[in-house]
Each structure stands twice: as C-alpha cells, then as structure tokens.
C-alpha cells in the first residue's frame, strides 16, 4: 500500500496536463474556463493580496461559530434525550417533524430575522449541525455500558458528577465522530449560504468572480474551497485518531 501512493497522483496530474494543453491549443479567451497555470497564478495572486485569506477567515469564523452553537445545543439535547427515555419518547414526533427541513429552507427565515451578515449564517449553520450531533449523542448515550451507570449509582454520584465523570468520558469517542461529521456539514452549509445569499466569505468570492467573468479566479476559489475542506477534514480525523486512538476506530467501525 505504501509503495503505490504515487498512483493516486497519476490521474489528476494527467487531467491537469491535458486541460493545460487543451486550453493552450484552443488559444481562446474563454469566459467560463481557464488553463490550470492561469488558475494557479490567480490563486497565488488572491492569496498574496489577502482577499482570499479574509474570505477564508469569514467563512471559517461563521462555520466555526455555528458549529459551536449547534454542536453544544445538539450535545445538550442529545444527552437529555439519551439519558431520560421518557423525554425522548415524548419529543419523538416534534423532532421528526423539524429534522427533515432542508438546511437551506431556513435560509429565507434567517434572512428575514437577522438580515445579511454573520449572525444569519451562524444561525443556519447551527440549525444544520444541531441534528447530526443530537442524534449521534443520543445514540452514544444509549451505547454506554450499563454497568458504568450501575457503578455511578453504587458510588452515589450526583447527576452532574455522573455526567462529568462517567457519561461524557464514555461517550466522548462517539461524540468526536459527530463533531467531525458536523464540521464537514458546517463548511458546506456556510459556503452554500454565502453563494445563495450572504455577501461574505469564500462562497461570495466565487460568485463575484463568476459574475465578473474571471474564470481563472472563480476556479481558483473552487480549488481553494476544496483545499480548505480537505484540510479541515484531515485535521479533525488526525485529532480524533490522536486523542482517542483505537477507541475511536473501534467505535466508528461499530457505528
């Protein structure tokens, strides 16, 4: 496996070279496509003049704040639902009625309430991150070894102690999986909101580049969004592996 890592690079490299040659041969100034070398030049230009970094900061800040808000709320609700079965049963219909609403459908509501800006984007990201975190946390609560709860009862731990010392540590690897999933969703939703409505960040940058008929810049933004998404995912996967090691892998395989 280690010896064949270069194989993954063959096809993308061939595609890039083919695109470069095709664009150079056709020798037209396209309004919709650009040669890879031009895209790279546009990418470097936008990175060095800071515009792309500012956009990245805006997007990541909104996605991060939304993830934090929605994640904490989801964690809290998931713990309540997971630990108190009767609440879970009573809220079943309500949750199932709200959950299928597509995240972008709340966009106009957020627009109406908050107007344009960070708060609207954060609200939508929080709404979308809430559900996966809540559901996975709820499942994690149900998956806690019952004997641990018995131990907590035998030790006469108070509810807060029980949550802090037994429940959270036992469920943490699974919650981490939920956070990684929600982080990917947060970035996707943030970019989507920016493209659809919000004049901020990377999504807006790519839209402006398209409307300004700058295909090289537009594709540079697309490549950059891909790089940001991939790095975020890779960082979180690495952190998960580092923090929980085997536990996370076993849990992920079992989930």
């Amino acid at each position, binding site marked *: 496996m280690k010896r064949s890592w270069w194989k993954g690079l063959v096809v993308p490299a061939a595609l890039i070279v083919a695109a470069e040659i095709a664009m150079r041969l056709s020798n037209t100034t396209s309004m919709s496509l650009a040669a890879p070398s031009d895209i790279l030049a546009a990418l470097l230009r936008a990175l060095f003049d800071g515009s792309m970094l500012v956009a990245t900061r805006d997007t990541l800040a909104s996605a991060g704040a939304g993830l934090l808000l929605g994640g904490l709320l989801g964690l809290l609700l998931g713990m309540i639902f997971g630990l108190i079965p009767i609440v879970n049963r009573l809220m079943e219909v309500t949750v199932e009625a709200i959950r299928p609403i597509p995240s*972008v459908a709340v966009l106009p*509501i957020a627009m109406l309430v908050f107007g344009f800006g960070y708060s609207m984007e954060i609200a939508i990201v929080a709404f979308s991150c809430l559900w996966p975190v809540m559901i996975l946390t709820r499942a994690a609560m149900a998956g806690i070894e019952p004997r641990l709860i018995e131990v907590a009862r035998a030790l006469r731990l108070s509810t807060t102690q029980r949550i802090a010392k037994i429940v959270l540590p036992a469920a943490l690897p699974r919650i981490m999986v939920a956070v990684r999933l929600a982080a990917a969703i947060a970035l996707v939703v943030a970019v989507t909101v920016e493209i659809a409505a919000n004049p901020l960040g990377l999504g807006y940058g790519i839209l402006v580049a398209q409307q300004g008929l700058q295909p090289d810049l537009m594709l540079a933004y697309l490549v950059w*969004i891909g790089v940001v998404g991939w790095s975020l995912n890779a960082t979180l996967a690495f952190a998960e592996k580092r923090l929980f090691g085997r536990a996370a892998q076993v849990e992920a395989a079992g989930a």
Partner: protein
Amino acid sequence: MKWSRLLSLLASFLVTALFVLAWKLVADYKLVSPVFLPGPDRAWTSLVRGFTTGDLGVKFLATVERMFWGWLIASLIGVALGAAIGTSPKLRAYLAPMLEFLRPLPASATIPVAIAVLGLSDGMVLAVIAFGALWPVLLATIHGFAAVEPRLYEVGRALRLSRATVIAKIALPSASPDILAGMRLGLTVALILSVVCEMIAGRDGLGNWILLAARSFRAPDLYAGVILLGLLGYFTAIAIGLLEARLLVWRSRAR
C-alpha cells in the same frame, strides 16, 4: 408492547400539538414580531390558498421533478462507475485518492462554475444536482463493492462466471445495503441542491418561492413553503426507507 408504543406515539403527538399551540399563542400575543413569525393558522391558510388559487402545486412539482431526475441520474452513474472502480483494485489504487480529495468539496461551490459553463438553464440545475448527489452514491458503491466477501469472488471464479455476471449476481446484491445508504444520502443532497439552485438561478420552484416571499416580507407564504419542504424531506425519507425494506428483504430473512 405494541399498545405502549402506540400510547407513547400518541403522547408524542400531543406534545407536538402543544408546541404548535405555543407557537400560536406567541404569534397571537405578538411576543415575536409578526413580520418574522406568523401564527401557524396564517401559515396554514397561506398553504391552502397557494394550492387552491395559487400555483404552489406547480412549483412544488417543479422542485420534486428536479430533485428526482437529478438524483436518478446521479444514482445510475454512481452505481455504474462505483461498480467499475469498486471491483477493480487497480482502478481503485489510481482513482480513490482523487475521489477522497474531492469528497469534502461543497457541491454548491460548483454552482457558479456550472452557471459560467452552462448558463442559467434547467440543464445547469440538473447537472449541479446530479454532480452533487453523485458523490455519496459513488463512494458508498465503491466501498460496498470493495467490501464484498473475497470468498464470494472466488466462488464466482470457480464457477467461471464472466465479470458482468459476477457483478450482477454476486457483488451487486452483496453491496446493495451500502448503495442504498448512499442513495439515501444522495436524495437529501439532491433536495438541498434543488432549493439552492432555484434560489440562485431563479428557476421556478419552491426554493425561489420562499426566497421571494422573504424578500417581500410575506412571512406566511415563507413558512408555508418551509413546511412544504419539510414535508417533502420527510416523505422522501419514508419512500426510500420503504424501497430499502423491499429491496433488502432477503437480508432480514437470512438473519
């Protein structure tokens, strides 16, 4: 057991009804500005009016159609490509790293590129939906085919089956749970992208409708549209659940 389940469901419905009542009271006493939050009665009236006198039904169908065709194209291509890549370790070695890199890329980020290449057309919308919904199906199919029990392939070889027969008779059934899970995810993506595309490209449909309603402060119309989108999400999830249960009936029987 069955009675208690029914009872808890009933109680759960009651809780939901209480929430709707609370929503109505909040709206009636104007605790929240009616510009943001119309009562459920007004949203309902708007929904009924939209279907009886307005053209909400047409817009609803336009969104459903878009979502369905995009998803179908994505599923067909995803399964075919996934089967080719998943059954061949060589192709997998060359292509999998590139696919893993592209996976976290937000599908909505391709919308400006698609607009630049294809223009503001229905074809563009379909292409974006199909492209976005392709990834979950493709990756799940590759995983499903790669995870087929190797001994089954050996049986196929011993019986001297052709590659097409092996795929149709051995690999496809064995990978179908993964494929269906991918298609389920693809359907959610397709719905979100339909709404986003309608918002950005101004194609007629629910997404465009709720955005226009928000822009002209017609809050009841907006909530009616959001409720409709929630219902759409809910029923597509149920539909694919039924499909799954029907196609995978052998799985539960075998256990």
